[in-house]
């Protein structure tokens, strides 16, 4: 299937959406990532990535509740789809396999 290729940032955003589970919307993803990556995130980059993920049908969206700090505006809540989950699993499997196949000597035996 076309679109299974995930960029690094796309993967991170997708994982964050999964992490936030029921409260994954752009601002929350920005907050979460800023803290975890310890660098400022721009809303634009995150929002566009989430749009792209939706076009690839890896997430789907619905409107959530409105809050006061949002000026009474609704959030768009994202949930990872089955396809999204499969893509994440696939990416993880590839990484695990890669890690597993790295010879011990490569990192000076320092990995345990």
């Amino acid at each position: 299937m076309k679109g299974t290729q995930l960029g690094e940032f796309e993967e991170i955003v997708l994982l964050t959406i999964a992490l936030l589970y029921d409260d994954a919307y752009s601002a929350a993803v920005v907050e979460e990532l800023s803290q975890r990556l310890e660098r400022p995130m721009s809303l634009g980059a995150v929002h566009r990535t989430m749009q792209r993920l939706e076009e690839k049908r890896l997430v789907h969206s619905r409107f959530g509740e409105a809050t006061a700090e949002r000026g009474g505006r609704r959030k768009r809540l994202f949930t990872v789809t089955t396809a999204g989950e499969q893509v994440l699993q696939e990416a993880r499997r590839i990484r695990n396999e890669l890690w597993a196949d790295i010879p011990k000597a490569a990192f000076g035996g320092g990995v345990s």
Partner: protein
Amino acid sequence: MSQKQTNRPPGWAQRLLERITAPHLREEIQGDMDELFQKRAQRHGYPKARLLYVVDLLLLLHPRLWRREPNVNFKARYTRYNDVSNPFFFHPTMIRNYVKIAFRNLVKNKAYSAINIGGLAVGMAVAMLIGIWINDELSANKHHKNYKTLYQVKLSQTFDGQRGTQDALPFPVGEELKSKYPDFKAVAMYDRGEGNRSLIVGNQKFLKQGLFIGEEAIDMFSLNILNGDKNPLKEPYSIVLSDETAKALFGQQDPIGKILKLDNKVDLKVTAVVAKQPKNATLQFDYLLPWSLQENMYDWVAKYVKTNWENNGWGVFVQLKDGIDPAQTNAKIKDVILSHLSNDPNTRKLVKPELFLHPMAKWRLYSEFAEGKNTGGFIKYVRLFGIFGLFILVIACINFMNLSTARSEKRAKEVGVRKAVGSGREQLIGQFLSESTLIAFMALVLAFGMVLISLPYFNSLTTKTMAIEFGNPVFWGIMLVFTIFTGLLAGSYPALYLSSFNPVKILKGGVHVGKSASLPRKILVVVQFTFSIVLMIGTIIIYQQMQHGKNRPIGFTKQGLISVSSSNDLTTNFEALRNELLASGAVSSICKSNSPPTQWWSSNGGWSWKGSTPEDKSAIFTTIATNFDYIKTMGIKLKEGRDFSRDFTTDSSGVILNEAAVKRMGLKHPVGEILKWAGKDRTVVGVIPDIVVEWSPYQTVRPLTIIFEKDRNWVSFLCVRINPAMAPSLAIQKMAPIFDKYNPGFPFDYKFSDTEYAKKFYYEELIGNLSAIVSVLAIFISCLGLFGLASFMAEQRTKEIGIRKVLGASVTSVWGLLSKDFVLLVIISCLIASPVAWYAMNQWLESYTYKITIGAGVFLIVLMMALAITLLTISYQAIKAALLNPVKSLRSE
């Protein structure tokens, strides 16, 4: 800054975000931005949060932010089958649909379609014909390889305060330019000889036109030598024939090396055959003679003119070396003639002869000079007809637009349904544009047919041999662009207008195209009629001016007067010829002359008279050199004095003046005055009225001197007055054997003066005829449009008319009701067109001295004509509508 503002994001940034964000994203994005702002404010304080808000906004800027939502039912794009986005409006399927609908519409409204396509086709055909004509004019001489470096040497001189420009130069100029000025790659002298010479092969005699020309001309003009010597004009006794002449003279035989006799004088050997020049070339000839032959043939050339710098009668063509600026050369050769005349202070001061180069690109269309400056020429007519062609095309397009918009109400439902089903505006525009382009192509095919049929007539009207260049890709390119352009132009208004309809309104109860919609239509009708009326007024004025020139009293009787080219034999045997002709009863009078009866060929300065100043020597008098019986033969009524007479031996030094000459000399009692010219005293024996023998029949008549000439060399023509009691054809029959007897070397060739005189109106007739055709067609196309519009109006108001009739309106009043609008439009057009036409035609008339003044009559006549035509066109529809039984028209509900 107040507290309230600092704890909120910057207002401008918020407004910007609001503006640029696509509607379907606006809510979430604004919410996210606000939420982030609040959280950051708590963490880092308001100033930092405000800064980050702006940074985030800048990083948000991306097409994804403002791109509209592709479809409400959002579907992924990458699958093939759930793609329901709008098809591209030029998708093949859509085009097929457009074409189908277009054809159905055409067939459904046959009358409209015929008017539409026919009108457009006529317009295109006219534009095409004019295009072909302009192309023919503009491409003249371009077949010469050295088109860019060839020049004609011209001479400007001032006589009597007027600076004139001429081709005629002294005989030695060419040799001088060739030997002393390195700027020239080649120089070819030629004689400007008018008239025909006789070529004799065996016992066959042919009158053909040709010229003496330098041997360099063959290469300069890249003449295509089909057969024979590559440098065929080197030997004096040779002749080069055009292929056409060669065929006429020798048939299928090989002409090279054959001997033929020229003017019954010298034997020449054919050295080459060259391809005939195209008809629009300036250099035209049936044969070429070597420049050096002149001296061998005419002893007076060697004796008088070879070193004479004052006798202007020859021309020079030059080719500049590549890369030489003609302005530079002009500066060098300016005074070539002056330097040879320097002993005469008068010439230096007053005449100021100056040579300059006239490039080949300007020979045909920019041939007029005034006061030593190039003032254009035929190019003004080329431009004029270019504009006419555009006019006609615009009128035809306007028609198309008008009819299409008028029909818009009928098509409105279609637009409504299409829109309701989901077609976008651009699709509708595409539909209407492709429909109009289709019609334009159909019109093109029809126009081609019209052009093919009318081209022979057009050719004979313009005396050209033009053809459609079917093999030329440029031609097809132009046609294609032209048609698509016409289609798009014609379809633009209906396309943009129809597609703007609101589907809800249309489908609810039909659009009510109110005043706002009919106003542009009215403006278009006014524009169309303004064009047509300007053309109509212009044509009438051109015809009036032509008629004015033809009605000008010319002072001599051109009917029954013929001219015959003279020859050695004719002048030698003149007395015997004269006696025999008079005795035959076919001729009442005959005289010798240096020019044909309708023209003068010579002009001279250097006259002095009682009370003349030295400056008066530069006054130019046209000269007719003749002998006995000139006045009698020409049929001139003398003002004073008498004709040259055989009874007065002193008449051999006599002179006859015209009134203009008397006025110029300021003579109170001219007869008997003694004038001096060419070192000889001449007595005025008579005064004639100003006879019009000018090149243009609209010119002021110049001062003329008729001198008595015994010298045979100056006789070029015999003028013969046919006995009025005898029918001209019979007289010609009787004269022919007598001329053949005394002129064995030439076929008997004669020209009637009245037809020769009529040729002077060539340009006026050409322009008059062309503009008559153009304006008739313009009116025709406009009327087609009007007819269509009127029928549409009548149809639209059927019910209104029905009700009016039920309430008691008469046929006349209904007719008036329908006609009123159009009549008003035509009157407005007349009001606009009249001043425009008046101004333009006044400009045109400026170039004539003998001219009409434009009266109010023309405008009134055109107004009446326009009204009459309009009423005729629309009355058919109006009366038809008015006669309709109201029961029928009202029952239709």
